[in-house]
Each structure stands twice: as C-alpha cells, then as structure tokens.
C-alpha cells in the first residue's frame, strides 16, 4: 500500500496543490452547479415559508419542531470532525492528519454555517432573531440566560468564530505560497492581503506555532461544550425521551461519529476530483476508518445506555416512548437508524474493506444517513408521544418545504466547500512538507542505523 512518497519535492507539492486551485475540471462545474441548484430549492422553500408562515412546513401542535432542528444537530455534529482532526490530533502529534486536516477544518466551518442557517429557518419570526443576542438596548431587556437555546446560540457563535480563526491561522503559510506563486489578478490581491506579510522568518514561525497551538487547545473544550449544549436543549427539558442525563456525551460521540463518516466521504471525493492520490493516501484513509469504527462503537454503547435508562428507569412515559419508537409510526426509521449507525460500521472491522474505496464510500454515506436519522429520532418521536395522550399525534409528516430546505442545506454545504477548494488550498502544503521531511529524516536515521530492514516498513 502506497503512502506519501518521502522523496517528493517541495516544489512538486506546491505545484500539485496549487493546481487544484486552477482550471476546474468539468466534474467540478457539474458538482457546483448541482449544489447551487439545491440551494435554489432551499431558498425557494424559505421564501415561501417566510411569506406564508411556518405552517407550510406541516408543523402542528404538538409537532412544534421537526426536520430543521434534527438537521441542525446533524450539521453541528458534522462540524466536530474538523476539530478532532486538526486540534486533537495536532496535540497528539499524529502526523497522518496533515494532508487532510485542512478540508476537515473547512468542513467544520461550513457545517457550522449550515447549522446556523437552520436556527434562523426554524424561527417563527426570523426577522427578530437579534432578540436572542445580549445587545445593549434602551429597555434593558436581556435574553433569557436560563434557556439552553440561548446557550446554544452563543456556543455556536463562539465555535464558528473560533473555527474560522483556526482555519485561517493555519492557512497563513499556505496563503503566502499562493501569493508567491499566483499570477496577478484578484486572487493575488486576496492572498497578499490574507497572508499578512508572511515571509517565513523564524520569528513568524515561532509566533505562528504558538498561536496555532493556543487556538487548538481552546477549540477542544469548545467543541465538547457545543454539542453538550445542543444536548442540553433536550436534556434540560422535561420531556420523555429528552430528559436524559447521558445526552451530552452521547451527543458528542454522535458528533464525532458523523464527522468522521463525513471525512471519509469527502476524502474520497476530493481524492478523486482533485487527483490528490499522492497526498490522500490509503494508509491515511485506513487510519480514519479505524478511528470511525472506534467512535461508532462508543456511540453504540451510549445509545444502548440511553435505551436502558429509558427502559429500566421505570418511568412509564419514557418506556412508552421507547416502545413507540420501536413499533410506532417512526419504527422503520428508528430501526434503520440503529442498523445504519450500529450494524453497518461492523463492516469496517474487516481489513480488506478498510481501504476499499467503493465500499467505504457507501458505508460512510450510510453512517451519515444513520446519524441524520438518529437526530430525527431524537426530535420527532417525543413530540408524537409526549406526556399528554390527548395531543399525541402519529400522523404528522414534514411537508416538502421542510424536506426542500433540508435537501438544499446539503447543496449549500457542498457549494461553500467547492468554492473553498478553488480559492484556498485544501491540502496543507507546509504541513505535508513537514511530514515528508520528518519522515524522510526518520527513514534516513533508520537507514543509517540499519534498522530499516528489521522494521520492514517505510513509515512510522
């Protein structure tokens, strides 16, 4: 299995990566066009919903929340993988993350931007969304700091701004490379501005390393807290199926899980679309797959903790809800979720599938389908079978408007991501160089001590 070549020239790395910024292939345009069309669908739905009212989504009493909140959690969850790869693995000095962390981080930012849209789309009076901000005003009215939804808004905002900062800071040396290698035009102006006068001096490097590390350290607790707070939206409520102590870790695990699955998907797509075979190598993929498998099992454990808590807690409302999930209106989706998110990952145990691109592509999509369903199965059944039996409602189905916006959100994410890939280097050039350099150093060291033959492989 071929890993990154250690003798690859630095100029070659620059050339390969910078090439991905230019001359889009036909496939790129096709994907971008489809993405924009999907966004168009969502915008149309939202305009309609804005004008007529949320009723067009087929919400009702008791189905107050629907796909918007479910998909919101989904996108928030998706964002965690970027932090995992770039911040956590950075601190753990896992060098295999280096060729892929950039796009994962971009994914974090863009999925947060997508999630944020759902907060807005979900509101009955989107035009008053600023009421949720603690801005100074003459009436001395504050938002309600007791509300998990407010914590949520703040956590997401902080996380988004930190993520953008982290993505940007980590990109500065690369932006300088872009600046130096790009011809004149708007791009050059952009890179010049963004590179902040990077010259690669020792002092700059030292400061850069320090800043990068600090933000990474800052980002990790933030990521954990964000999804814990999203979990609090449910855990802090009093409803059956929501009022569960294990929700925060469960949500965080779910977030890392869906994020990893999404990284696999994007890894494969990028590798193919931008011809990054040189950098996005099979051993890296294998590592992500194994990580995904581990997280999937953690998640499975936590979901069973949830079921067991509901069942053995002897709270009739929780028990009833669990039974309804397994046998009621939502049963097909609930079972599909359990299958996709707990059973399908078992396939990743097998070594030959760990590098089988078509299988991994399909599995990663199924995992994310499962994780999306999981979010929906957290939100909707509690409304369908809450406390009050008179208002139970098993017939509600989200309208095409809701589905349209959910559908469009994938287009929005793809669109942002595709545009990003053509403007910013989606593989970190300087870190790949570091990685290649360090590896070749190690190899040389091994060769020198004659231990290479004994170790039998070329990488550590």
């Amino acid at each position, binding site marked *: 299995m071929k890993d990154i070549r250690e003798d690859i020239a630095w100029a070659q790395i620059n050339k390969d990566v910078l090439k991905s910024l230019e001359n889009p292939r036909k496939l790129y345009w096709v994907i971008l066009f489809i993405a924009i069309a999907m966004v168009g669908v969502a915008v149309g739905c939202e305009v309609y919903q804005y004008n007529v009212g949320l009723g067009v989504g087929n919400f009702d009493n008791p189905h107050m929340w629907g796909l918007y909140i479910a998909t919101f959690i989904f996108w928030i969850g998706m964002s965690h993988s970027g932090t995992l790869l770039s911040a956590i693995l950075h601190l753990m000095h896992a060098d295999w993350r280096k060729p892929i962390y950039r796009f994962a981080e971009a994914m974090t930012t863009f999925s947060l931007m997508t999630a944020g849209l759902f907060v807005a789309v979900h509101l009955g*009076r989107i035009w008053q969304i600023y009421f949720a901000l603690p801005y100074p005003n*003459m009436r*001395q009215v504050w938002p309600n*700091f007791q509300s998990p939804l407010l914590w949520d808004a703040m956590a997401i905002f902080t996380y988004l701004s930190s993520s953008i900062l982290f993505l940007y800071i980590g990109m500065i040396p690369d932006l300088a490379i872009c600046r130096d290698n790009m011809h004149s035009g708007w791009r050059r102006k952009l890179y010049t501005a963004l590179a902040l006068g990077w010259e690669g001096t020792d002092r700059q490097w030292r400061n850069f390393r320090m800043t990068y590390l600090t933000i990474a350290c800052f980002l990790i607790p933030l990521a954990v807290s964000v999804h814990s707070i999203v979990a609090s939206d449910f855990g802090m409520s009093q409803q059956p199926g929501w009022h569960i102590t294990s929700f925060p870790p469960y949500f965080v695990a779910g977030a890392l899980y869906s994020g990893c699955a999404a990284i696999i998907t994007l890894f494969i797509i990028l590798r193919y679309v931008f011809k990054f075979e040189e950098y996005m190598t099979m051993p890296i993929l294998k590592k992500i797959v194994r990580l995904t498998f581990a997280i999937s099992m953690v998640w499975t454990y936590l979901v069973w903790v949830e079921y067991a808590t509901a069942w053995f807690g002897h709270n009739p409302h929780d028990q009833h809800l669990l039974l309804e999930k397994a046998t009621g209106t939502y049963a097909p989706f609930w079972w599909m979720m359990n299958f996709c998110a707990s059973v399908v990952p078992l396939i990743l145990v097998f070594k030959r599938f760990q590098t089988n691109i078509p299988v991994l592509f399909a599995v990663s999509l199924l995992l994310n389908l499962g994780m999306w369903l999981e979010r929906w199965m957290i939100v909707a059944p509690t409304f369908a079978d809450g*406390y009050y039996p008179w208002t139970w409602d098993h017939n509600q189905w989200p309208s095409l408007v809701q589905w349209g916006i959910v559908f469009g959100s994938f287009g929005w994410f793809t669109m942002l991501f595709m545009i990003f890939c053509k403007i910013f280097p989606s593989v970190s050039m300087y870190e790949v160089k570091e990685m290649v350099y360090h590896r070749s150093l190690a190899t040389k060291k091994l060769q020198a001590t004659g231990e290479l033959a004994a170790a039998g492989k070329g990488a550590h």
Partner: protein
Amino acid sequence: MSISTLFENYSEFRHRHPDGDVPHNPYKWAMAIDLDACSGCNACSVACYAENNLPVVGKEKFAHGQAMHWMRIERYWDQDGREFPDRGARYLPMLCQQCEAAPCETVCPVGATNHTPDGLNSQIYNRCIGSRYCSSNCPYKVRYFNWYDYPTTDNVWPAEMNMQLNPDVTVRSKGVMEKCTFCIQRIRGAEIDAKTQGRLVRDDGELQTACQQACPTSAISFGNLVDPESKVHKQWRAQQVDLDKHEQVKDEEEGGTDLRGYRIYEFLAPYPSIMYLERVRESEI
C-alpha cells in the same frame, strides 16, 4: 442597560412559587374546575374565541393539528373494555395551567414568557421570536403557535367579521406563540379599577374569565388564591390542595382520600394553578 438587571430578572420573575412567608401579594390568580359539573358543552371554548380573538383556522388546518383553541374540551372514555360506555364520558376542559414553576418559562431564549407578580404565566407576543421551545417543554401541550398570518388569511376575519375583534386583546401575527392568559385583559382592567378605588379586586363577579362567565353549569371558578374570602381559596383549602406542593399530604393517606381536588401532572412539579375536582359517578346504579 445595567448588569444588575441581568441578575435581577431571573430571581424576581422566575421564582418557583411563593416561599414560606413571602406569598404572592396581593393577588395570585387561580382556578378550580369541577368536572362533576362540567357537561362538556363547549360554551367556554367558544366564549374564549369571542373574547381573545382566536382565529378559526378552517378544516384543512384543523386536520393538520393547527387549531388554536386555547380552551379545549377533551372527551375520555372509561378503559375497561365494556361494550358500551354506560358510565358516560369524562370531560376535561384543558387550558394553560398557569404553572408556578412553568417548564415553558425557563427555556424561552428571549424571555418572552414570564411569571407575573400576580402569579400568571404571561406571554409577550412582541418579544416572541417563535423558537417554540416553550411548547416543546409544555407537558400539557396547551400552547398554540401562529403557523400562519391569520389576520391576512382568507375567511379568518373577512370584512365585517373583523369588527368583532376585541380591542383589548392583541391580534397575533404569524410566528408567535400564544396561549390562555386567564383573560389578562379582564384581570388588568379589574386590578386597575380596584387600585384607583383604593381597594382590592372583589370576589363577587367583578372579575370573571370569559370561560367562567359563559359556563352554563358554573363549573369554573376563578379568583384570588391569596384572598381567604375568595371561593377559589376556600375550594383549594377544602380540597387540601396546596399550591406549592407537588405531592399533597392527603394523597398519602392510607386508603386514599374522599376529597376530589387534584392537579394534573403534579409529579412533574410545575405547580399548576388550576385545581380540578374529580368527576363523580353514582355507585348504586
């Protein structure tokens, strides 16, 4: 805007229920509904439409579960498998329970639903941004959302019909949550009248909610729980239902109690302000 208000808001207006020697003063509005008298006739519900500018949503939206009846009459059957419901049905007028520790209040991101000093669970339409978290957290599901812009919807208030709208009550536009207010417009009117006359609101029909006023069997009583002379206060006392308990002492008596007063979902500790009196059936027939 001062930082002090940041901390004040929550301690003052979100207290669970009166603590010990600091009761609501001078008012705590509460209700008692006698289910043995209630015949399930719906008069209260229609009166509520008339008083509170509730929109008629029409068949299609009703089918989608988007009805706006603040006061809904629920009809239950005995569940013992008899061929005929020969003990009749059981009716329950369900409206906002004006909980003292309302699950809806803590979760609203913008503080649009609050507790008033006279013990009401208020809803500020102007402040509401429509996150619908309050309804999600309501165990009784008595909060109703404006899924559409009813004032501009065909046949909700067409010309002339709009002249009936009560000018004391806001006509809600799309995207805000609403619910039973205990006819707050009437409460405020009576409170202000009483204040200008230097007295408290009397318990003699000076203040009635629209549902109470219409109810042909007078099953609904409403009044000031703090006032020891009020009917509501006497009823709650006689039934040994305490506002600030989530388990009543009488329920722990061996063999149960012969008192009919109970509150729905007391065990969730929302401390509802509505006491129901159990429906009764004759044993000898």
